[in-house]
């Protein structure tokens, strides 16, 4: 049973719609990530879930009952704010104790609960420091502990890692996953970092300009993006426009730069005069001559090579000024392209994904 769900949630500020018709199901114990570019409405949606912002339309349900009008203080949700929002006048321990004091938990239990969560988030020895004496990562841990200590039904996290440096971010990602596993709490996590979303989530919801464009597991969204926006937002992808698409059973054929290209397509393509073919770079390969075994191949020129250590990034130009990117292992014994060289880029037909929008 879905623990939290929303139905047609919209938000308008003045005449501007910043969220339109968001419908989503958040299952019990799930790690859901709201992913989208800046200004796509992620924080607004999280604030609506938390009860800090009232939706202009739509409803929120918790275990089937309507909580749209329930004030934030009665929802029993934990929240980790962008920028932590710790109480500067209280020590780490007192910050974590705060929600327990609100609930009138007995002194003994409060003390043991606080100590336990301090251990869980790895803050041993820092309990008596004020937030200003803690590092960014430690402050983040206090914020997490404070939001989890009272056993919330839902934990909302607004870009909790964005202010941290890379090492700390990676370390905390691992710990977030562990906390999620250990507490069994439902997490709703906001980020605009796609690799963070892929690494952490059970389910990703992609936001674009106030709309929920796709929801699914990281694998589904990566493999089967619904739109060009989703395809380009999550991971790197090469997009090739197809002219004169013709459907032939479960295969779609079209041309680009005089080359016939094919991709699997099950739904009906009638009415489309043009569409795009999206291919993840990991499915592509380069060769000096046109490969015999592959139907999908493009002749490209190497524009630029960037050495990245383990791999070398190639910038390739195809017909019609189309730029494609690709990376090859730096140490491979086989074919190493050089700048300016004309080479062939190919991929198996079943790895292409047809995009109409």
């Amino acid at each position, binding site marked *: 049973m879905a623990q939290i769900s929303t139905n047609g949630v919209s938000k308008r500020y003045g005449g501007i719609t910043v969220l339109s018709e968001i419908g989503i199901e958040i299952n019990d114990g799930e790690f859901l990530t709201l992913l989208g570019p800046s200004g796509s409405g992620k924080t607004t949606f999280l604030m609506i879930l938390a009860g800090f912002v009232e939706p202009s339309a739509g409803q929120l349900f918790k275990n089937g009952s309507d909580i749209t009008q329930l004030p934030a203080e009665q929802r029993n949700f934990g*929240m980790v704010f962008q920028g932590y929002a710790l109480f500067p006048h209280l020590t780490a321990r007192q910050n974590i104790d705060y929600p327990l004091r609100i609930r009138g938990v007995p002194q003994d239990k409060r003390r043991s609960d606080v100590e336990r969560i301090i251990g869980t988030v790895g803050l041993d020895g820092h309990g008596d420091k004020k937030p200003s004496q803690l590092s960014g990562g430690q402050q983040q841990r206090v914020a997490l502990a404070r*939001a989890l200590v009272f056993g919330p039904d839902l934990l909302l996290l607004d870009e909790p890692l964005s202010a941290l440096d890379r090492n700390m971010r990676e370390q905390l990602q691992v710990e977030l996953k562990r906390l999620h596993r250990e507490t069994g709490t439902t997490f709703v996590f906001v980020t605009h970092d796609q690799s963070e979303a892929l690494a952490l989530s059970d389910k990703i919801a992609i936001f674009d300009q106030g709309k929920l464009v796709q929801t699914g597991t990281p694998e589904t969204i990566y493999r089967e993006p619904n739109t060009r926006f989703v395809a380009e937002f999550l991971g790197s992808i090469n997009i090739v426009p197809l002219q004169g698409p013709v459907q032939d059973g479960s295969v779609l054929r079209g041309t680009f730069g005089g080359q016939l290209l094919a991709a699997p397509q099950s739904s009906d393509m009638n009415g489309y005069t043009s569409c795009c073919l999206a291919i993840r770079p990991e499915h592509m390969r380069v060769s000096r001559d046109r490969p015999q075994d592959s139907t999908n191949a493009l002749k490209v020129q190497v524009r630029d090579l960037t050495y990245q250590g383990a791999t070398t990034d190639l910038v390739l130009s195809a017909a019609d000024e189309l730029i494609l990117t690709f990376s090859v292992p730096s140490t491979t014994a086989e074919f190493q392209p050089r700048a300016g060289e004309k080479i062939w880029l190919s991929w198996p037909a079943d790895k292409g994904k047809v995009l109409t929008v």
Partner: protein
Amino acid sequence: MGSVRQTQVLQTVLLWTLPVLVLPFYIAPLLGVFEWSLSRPEPGLQNYVRLVTDGDVIAVLLRTFRICLLVTLISVLCAYLLAYHWVFGSPARRLIMEICIFIPFWISVLIRAFGWIVLLRTKGVANDILLFSGVISDPLYLVRTEFSVVLGMVHFMVPFAVFPLASVMRQIDPKILLASRGMGASASFTFFNAFLPLTLAGIVAAIIIVFVFSLGFFITPAVLGGGKIVMIAEYIYIQMFQTTNWGFGAALSVGLLAIVAILSALLFRVIRPERLVR
């Protein structure tokens, strides 16, 4: 390099302006007053002995403290509410608050005191309204009472208390208050456990400013007290210019200065505002 040289000269001039002005215009007269208190009418400590034994003086001092405490309490409370709405209110409310806070600054303290007399006197606007609406049947004697003095002083002091309070409130991250609510806190829990402690430094500053300022108030109690509610500053004035008791007036001034200094030092010691600011 001429410009470096000029900068150095400018720095020196700016650095020394204040001490150079303070010395002849403040320290020197102060020492003069101190000297008077010990030498007039004849050398000795008799002026200071009178300070702590004269029943009149003690009565004036006690009245001054009582009024100042009351004024401080009321002003800081009003200012707290005003500052809250000024900082957290809607844009329209903020504008109204700004007008209410700044307009009194442009009106002279004398005019404001007389304004209160117009409002409060026996045939004044306040009595007219109360009589007309039937709340009272005989006019109230509001002028030349402690009530009118306190009212006039509060009216003057509130804006001064608003500024330190608004400044600490502006530093509060609104997300902190949201966080408190989100954890389930009621409005009063959030106020007493988050908002109040975070504004404590401003409260202390406002209390010190209002109390110290009130101790030396002259015009407002003189006009609204009408000679009946005499506070220490007016009492000093009477000693100096009406009874020409220069030495005793000077001793009172020195005593007032000492009280203000000790009180400020104590307040700072006890509450340590510098520790409250993060």
